[in-house]
């Protein structure tokens, strides 16, 4: 299929359609309302469900009901809306329901702002709601990758019977880029949905729940979930290396739009005779722990620099990955400010001159 120019939000919407989404529930919020507008036309065309709910609390719980049918369903929102969905995400994780949630992040906390940020890293990767659970988190850095990961998200949700979250900053949602959709969509085989509520005809009733009043039963459910998360850590770590070579003096770790900006900084520094490598996590949970550790411990690397559009949330995971073999430093802006390649270069030069202080 030919490449077409599309806005990130619309490309994400179309990718979901191509991956077989039959239900979309939403509540308007900047900077991702274009998804809802696109879906309000696209889903009825296909005879699928589009519904604008009364709140994100309702959206999350509508997803619980809709996912219980066994059909592919999803929502998109932005930071404050995602906070309101945490109740349902916890329940869906507990009840092992596959669902896809997109967070086009804006600055916080609170009402914050409407400009791009990466400050929901903790919320996305550490559970977000109450209880012992995780969601699988994917982070695209281009519109094309948003399309590819969106389609993968539905597959992984079904594969693990777990909520999958794709997080992009407002830049990913608002930017227009050339994208290409696969001619036809195919994916590896998945287990039958023998848990879905389809009516107890010639079989025993199925109950989809997260309630286990007996503590032994609840612990067992948490162990089942934990085993899935272990499998994700083994099989679903995704990351990409950029300009990584023995001449590197610093290893950058950055994801999403921030990683893309770092690539420009790296290219420009390379021309200026400074060699920097980048490790870009694509899956944020599971996090590329051993990959970062292996790169960090290479002799030529003197320091690891995490670059984020937050106050340094991913840095805590980078520190866990590096395990003290090298110092870890932070560079970033937040509140909706997107650092320029020059700003990142400046920080790298300060770091090389020994001017960047410890920690943040």
């Amino acid at each position, binding site marked *: 299929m030919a490449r077409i120019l599309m806005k990130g939000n619309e490309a994400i919407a179309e990718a979901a359609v191509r991956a077989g989404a039959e239900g979309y529930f939403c509540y308007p919020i900047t900077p991702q309302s274009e998804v809802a507008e696109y879906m309000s036309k696209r889903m009825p065309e296909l005879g699928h469900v589009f519904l604008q709910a009364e709140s994100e609390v309702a959206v999350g719980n509508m997803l619980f009901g809709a996912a219980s049918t066994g059909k592919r369903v999803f929502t998109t929102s932005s930071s404050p809306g995602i906070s309101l969905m945490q109740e349902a995400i916890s329940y869906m994780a507990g009840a092992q329901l596959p669902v896809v949630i997109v967070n086009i992040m804006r600055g916080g906390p609170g009402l914050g702002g409407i400009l791009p940020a990466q400050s929901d890293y903790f919320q996305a990767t550490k559970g977000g709601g109450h209880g012992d659970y995780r969601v699988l988190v994917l982070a695209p850095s281009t519109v094309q990758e948003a399309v590819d990961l969106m389609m993968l998200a539905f597959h992984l949700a079904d594969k693990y019977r777990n909520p999958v979250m794709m997080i992009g900053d407002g830049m990913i949602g608002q930017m227009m880029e050339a994208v290409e959709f696969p001619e036809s969509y195919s994916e590896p085989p998945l287990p039958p949905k023998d848990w879905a509520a389809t009516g107890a005809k010639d079989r025993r009733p199925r109950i989809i729940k997260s*309630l286990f009043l007996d503590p032994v039963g609840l612990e067992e459910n948490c162990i089942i979930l934990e085993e899935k998360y272990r499998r994700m850590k083994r099989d679903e770590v995704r990351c990409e290396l950029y300009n990584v070579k023995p001449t590197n003096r610093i290893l950058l770790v950055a994801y999403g739009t921030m990683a893309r900006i770092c690539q420009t900084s790296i290219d420009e520094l390379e021309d200026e005779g400074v060699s920097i490598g980048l490790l870009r996590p694509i899956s944020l949970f599971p996090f590329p722990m051993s990959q970062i550790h292996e790169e960090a411990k290479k002799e030529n690397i003197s320091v690891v620099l995490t670059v984020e559009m937050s106050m340094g949330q991913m840095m805590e995971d980078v520190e866990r990955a590096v395990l003290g073999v090298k110092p870890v430093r932070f560079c970033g802006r937040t509140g909706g400010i997107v650092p320029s390649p020059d700003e990142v270069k400046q920080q790298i030069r300060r770091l090389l001159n020994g001017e960047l202080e410890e920690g943040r």
Partner: protein
Amino acid sequence: MADDAVTIFKRPVSLTETVTHYCPGCTHGVIHRIVAEVLDELGVRDRTVGIAPVGCSVLAYNYFNCDFLEAAHGRAPALATGFKRLRPDMIVFTYQGDGDLASIGMGEIVHAANRGEKFTTIFVNNAVYGMTGGQMAPTTLPMQITTTCPFGRDVAHAGYPVRIAEMLATVATPGYIARVAVHTPMHIIRAKHAIRQAFTYQKEGRCFSLVEVLSTCPTNWGQTPGEAIDWLHSQMMPYYPLGCFKDPDGKESR
């Protein structure tokens, strides 16, 4: 037994044989049975999904012999919306108490009714939070004593009890809204008629339907089962009048 014996009473197929956890004198069991009988009579059990609330009936899925989802507190109408939109061919009902529906879930039920979602809600109103130990509900009567209004509900402090059936009957979207009681055989028969009507409208794909059922809670009212029946009749029914408040064919009756 003679060969020509005729069965005149049996457990509905839509109920399991699970022993009830409800307190003696509680009318949840009666309401469960009515719903199950209606599912049997309409022949829809094997394409029905029920949605349990948070509250005393949180374990409703143990008693109904059909697929079930367990919702977060107050969110059953949102689950029902999501499910029914994806599977309009199935029968969907929520079973919710007054803390669940009239307090924390007020937003979800109002908007589901207003969108005209084609599922059925069984709303059990016993004027108190049961499972958590008898706290004041939005439906607690003026001067009624509960564990969080030990001197009686003060309407200057907590406002007046919410009348859900009347409130939902004000939405412009067509729907079926009725209030019934189950404390006497006569009322049980009328309640079953209303619940059957609600599920029938759903089966026909007509409209949203909600039946509010006045129910007893001897344990948290601090009464014997007999006293509770009398209290429901003398105290609840004057504030919560029975009747059909909204009907898609205009067959309202009070």
